[in-house]
Each structure stands twice: as structure tokens, then as C-alpha cells.
């Protein structure tokens, strides 16, 4: 099983955690606030 060679461990961990950090930044800074703004604007239009 070549996936158990330690070289691949480092490769997996490097790319995996880089991806998680990038996704966390993207979601918390851009995408989730975008959906929240959308909800708030709908609320302002319909109920307030």
C-alpha cells in the first residue's frame, strides 16, 4: 500500500490542512457573510 509511505503522509497533511485553512478563511470572510446579507436584505424588504 503506497499510501502508507511517510512521504505521502506529509503531502496529505500539507495539502489537506492548507485546504481547510483556505476554506475557513473564504467561508468566514466572504461566503457566509454574503448569505447573511442576502437574508437581512430580504428581511428588510418583506417585514420591516
Amino acid at each position, binding site marked *: *500500500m*503506497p*499510501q502508507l509511505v511517510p*512521504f*505521502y*503522509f*506529509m*503531502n*496529505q*497533511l*500539507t*495539502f*489537506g*490542512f*492548507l*485546504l*481547510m485553512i*483556505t*476554506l*475557513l478563511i*473564504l*467561508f*468566514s470572510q*466572504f*461566503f*457566509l457573510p*454574503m*448569505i447573511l446579507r*442576502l437574508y437581512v*436584505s*430580504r428581511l428588510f*424588504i418583506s417585514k420591516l
Partner: protein
Amino acid sequence: MFNLLNTYITSPLDQFEIRTLLGLQSSFIDLSCLNLTTFSLYTIIVLLVILCLYTLTTNNNKIIGSRWLISQEAIYDTIMNMVKGQIGGKNWGLYFPMIFTFFMFIFVANLISMIPYSFALSAHLVFIISLSIIIWLGNTILGLYKHGWTFFSLFVPTGTPLPLVPLLVIIETLSYIARSISLGLRLGSNILAGHLLMIILAGLTFNFMLINLFTLVFGFVPLAMILAIMILEFAIGIIQSYVWCILTASYLKDAVYLH
């Protein structure tokens, strides 16, 4: 003579094999962790898919997005209600982006892995268990930071008779430590077992159908069962990503509020 070429059998584990696609070489530093392998290629694909889901679907920031954005809003609502229900209080919003990130990553990775001849990111126990150990460590540090020594009251359930306390503390401590592995193992082994099952059954059915005309026709019966298993695998992929998030949220609740 023993000829390796003639006796080579494709292992069902071949699909999880990591191959180097592009390698960086330097005589000074070891850059092998930055090589482009199948694993890193699929992390990039997951990132691109999620980026596309949120950038190409917004319909130029209008009040009504495209249908794809409505699916994302449904996911947002589901995860938000789950986090609100699990963690509650005033601070649930602090932890929401992290749990949402976990959900989207595991969800997209699991669905991409269902494409034939693709690669299952979440079946790699090295990465998934490292992730769960880091979540567990973070939870423990958060609990110790918020409550100090009172954090260890988590190991004594309320209303325990005094003679039972030493035994229960040992059991609770063991179960708390086991969480670090079990969170990742649950997801990884589910995906790993599902993909192995599909390839083994499909390989057997394929060989069975090749025998003669009768087996070719009769082989559609096991093929239909494999289809059912594939649908089950889709469901497992989605459910496991939700289970990961619900457990992370409940562990966070334990660390933040102590019961």
C-alpha cells in the same frame, strides 16, 4: 519462471493509491510535501468546486440567486439550525463558520469520490484522523482556557453516587480520549468500506457477465443490487458529513458549557 506481469491482480485498494503527478526537486531542501499528487489534485478540485458554488451562482448579488445558490442556502439553514440547537447560548455563531467549513469540505469530497475513477479524499485515514485529533485538541484547550481546572468536572456526571465516582471518572476519561480517534475513524472507515464494497461487487459481476450469454442477461440482477448500494453510498456520504458536524458541535458544547 515467476512472471509478475502475468500474475498481477488489480487490488481493490488501488483506487486509494496516491501517485505523484508533478514533483518538485531541490538538492538543498526536501520539497516532496509540496508535490502535486492525486491527493493534492483532488484538494484543489474540491476548493474549485466550492469556489464555483459560491461565486458563479450569486446572480450578480441580486436578492434572488440562481437555483444553485438556493441549494447552498438550504445547506446554510440546515447547518445553522443544527449548530444553534447543539451549542445554543450567545456564542454559537463563533463556531458556525468552522463547522460549516467541515461540512462543505466533507460533503463535496464525498460526492466527488462517487464519480467513477475518481479519488476518495475522506477515505485517507492519515488526514481524516489528524483532522479529528486536532479538533479534539482544540476543544480540550478551549475548555481548559474557559474553565480552568473546573473543566475536569466534565468527567464526573452529575448525580453520581460517591462510591462510583472513581470508576466513572476512568470510564469518562477513556471515552473522552477515544473521541479524538473515533470521530475521524467513523467517517474514514465508512467511506473506505463503501468504496471497497462497490469495486469488489462490480468486479465480480463484470467477470460473471463475461462468461456466456445467459450470465450476461442474468447479471443484470446483481447489477441492480450494486445500483442500490451506490445509492446507499451517496446517502452515507451525505449523512457522514452531517454526523461529523453534529458531533463536532456537541463536543464544542461540552467544552464551552460543561454539560
